[in-house]
């Protein structure tokens, strides 16, 4: 292990106290490691093998398929459940079948895929992985904004098209430097987007449930818009970076889109349902706004004949906000850290409690 990996291992080991006194993984016998339920290795919702190895340093693992195959053997052993790319699904019937489950460690920061009050009622803790996903998510937001503004996709398609004989003169994009970015949702990710945008001398407006401190605002040159409409009217790029809550389903609908500039681009990195897709399609068809760049849709992926997929000036990535090797590794490490803490009765560093 290199020194960084050692450091990370030590952080995890703090929360690992196996039934034997000796804490070093190489000295702990396999038998002492607690059991964890994971989705599968490989496949659509599966883990890469290297990531599963991180889990296996501290847990013995049961795949969901194995559990279904022999529930009597596996179910009572399971003390931790890892959710990766929303799998396995934390449905009541599954959770009720795991009598010794102490914790659900979910990868990612969103928790809208879990019924928190119900899980709490079973005496099971829930953890997520905040912090480690923020930079990667902010990066995809900037990648979408820049790729859309500068027509990277269209440029690439022309460059590789067998019929291209000349460099096109008329493929014009929008100037990013000095333009106005309106960030809706200035949490950890929204703020990192603001930090990155400042490097491009963008004028930054933001709308949030609560206003940030004057110091925070000054560091990134952000101006608070108490009124969302104000932000929508003034922005060249509208960036949606909110958590999904019942309050912001359909936050961006017909009305909001009609307030935006006809030259503006909508970028969504939160959750698909925050944007009314029908309204977005109409707005793009009518030229109410210029374009959209989305890492999230509803559903994911969209049906192949969905109108969004045939409109120009639309860029859609398949929810890859945190799909980087380094970030995936950090997420799994945090999941392991949290799960070990719960299994050992220690405070769970990233516990998510239901809101009362």
């Amino acid at each position, binding site marked *: 292990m290199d020194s960084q990996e050692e450091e990370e291992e030590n952080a995890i080991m703090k929360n690992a106290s196996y039934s034997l006194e000796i804490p070093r993984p190489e000295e702990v016998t396999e038998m002492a490691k607690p059991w964890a339920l994971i989705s599968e290795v*490989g*496949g*659509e919702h599966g883990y*890469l093998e290297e990531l599963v190895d991180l889990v296996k340093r501290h847990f013995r693992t049961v795949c969901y398929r194995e559990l279904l195959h022999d529930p009597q053997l596996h179910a009572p052993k399971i003390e931790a459940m890892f959710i990766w790319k929303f799998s396995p699904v934390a449905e009541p019937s599954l959770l009720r079948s795991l009598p010794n489950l102490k914790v659900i460690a979910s990868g990612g920061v969103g928790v809208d895929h879990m019924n928190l009050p119900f899980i709490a009622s079973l005496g099971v803790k829930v953890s997520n992985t905040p912090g480690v996903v923020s*930079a*990667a998510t*902010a*990066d*995809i937001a*900037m*990648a*979408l904004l*820049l*790729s859309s503004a*500068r*027509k*990277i*996709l269209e*440029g*690439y398609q*022309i*460059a*590789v098209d*067998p019929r*291209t*004989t*000349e*460099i*096109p*003169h*008329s*493929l*014009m*994009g*929008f*100037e*990013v*430097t*000095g333009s106005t970015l309106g960030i809706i949702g200035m949490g950890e990710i929204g703020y990192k987007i603001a*930090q*990155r*945008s400042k*490097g*491009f*001398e963008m004028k930054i407006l933001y709308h949030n449930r609560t206003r940030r401190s004057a110091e925070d605002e000054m560091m990134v040159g952000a101006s608070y818009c108490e009124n969302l409409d104000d932000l929508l009217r003034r922005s060249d790029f509208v960036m949606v970076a909110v958590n999904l809550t019942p309050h912001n389903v359909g936050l961006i609908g017909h009305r909001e889109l009609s307030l935006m500039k006809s030259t503006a681009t909508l970028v969504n990195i939160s959750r698909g349902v925050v944007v009314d897709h029908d309204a977005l399609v109409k707005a793009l068809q009518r030229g109410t706004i210029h374009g959209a760049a989305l890492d999230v849709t509803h559903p994911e*992926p*969209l049906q*192949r004949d969905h109108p969004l*997929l045939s409109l120009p000036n639309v*860029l*859609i*990535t*398949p929810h*890859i906000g945190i*799909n*980087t*090797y*380094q*970030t*995936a590794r950090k997420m799994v490490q945090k999941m392991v850290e949290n799960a070990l803490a719960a299994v050992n009765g220690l405070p769970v560093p990233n516990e998510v409690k239901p809101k009362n």
Partner: protein
Amino acid sequence: MEKPCVLASREHMGSPGSMFTSFSAHIEEHFTVVEPDRIRASPELCSKIRAVMLWDGTPPVTRTLLQSLPNLKVVVNGGVGVDHLDIPLINSFGVRVCNTPHVVDNATADLAMALMLASARRVIEGDHFSRCHGDGEVLDHLPLATDVSGSTLGIVGMGRIGYKVAKRAAAFDMKILYHNRNRRSVEEEQAVGATFCPLLADLLHAADFVMVVVNLSKETTHLIGREQLSAMKPTATLVNVSRGMVVDQEALVDALQKKRIKAAALDVTYPEPLPRDHPLLSLPNVIVLPHMGTHTLETTGHMVQKMVTNALAALAGDTPPDEVKR
């Protein structure tokens, strides 16, 4: 009074119906535009031409052309690169050469960042998957991407544009190394957190992203060749926004095919466009763009304004603000 005549190719600058129309209007405010094919048969028209406005290398400024335009005072190039112009030859006819520096810097730095992010985060593949995925097709076949934040950027060529790239990359918490003919001041380095690498090889060994932002000259032709590509990490990406000839393209294809580097993202190639069967157009992990570094309405407008300003100054007998001397 008749407006002075300039030789310019309207098709390249703003054919009717294209979005360049507003730009050619600005030129026609001050000049009478003469198309290249009109002067062939007319020595009288040739003697009226006082300036040539060059866009995407058109019209080509050859010895023959220079000989045919006795009253030519200035050649004004749209763009900052003048590697396609024989400046000593042009000067020998008593003709000045001007370019459009500074106004291209932001747009080019922005595109360099866009290319790096699109490549690292597999944006084009992702969009393709969204549109073309089969029923039940596995997203997992998309390999995991590479983080930009926190990784190491090596900037080869820290001129105005390279420095603007550094400023943008610093906001992504990137570790920044740079190699340049001259070292920047300590204040400039500190402002973007950049470390000078006197040896290009040191930068190449350490960088996750190698960004080439030099002018094309005899010294920088094939600056990135077989040796340099071998020095790069196998996980590294080459990004080129300078000129195609700065990179040995054959060596690049070889390095990509043998996985000696991971990816390439190129706004410039040699030639432009590439032949349709060129391997760079079909290699995975390669983005090629059709030389769009300055392709925004705002920047293009500023370039045209600079061209007009320089031409007017030269014709008035003044020193134009952006004369290029050799």
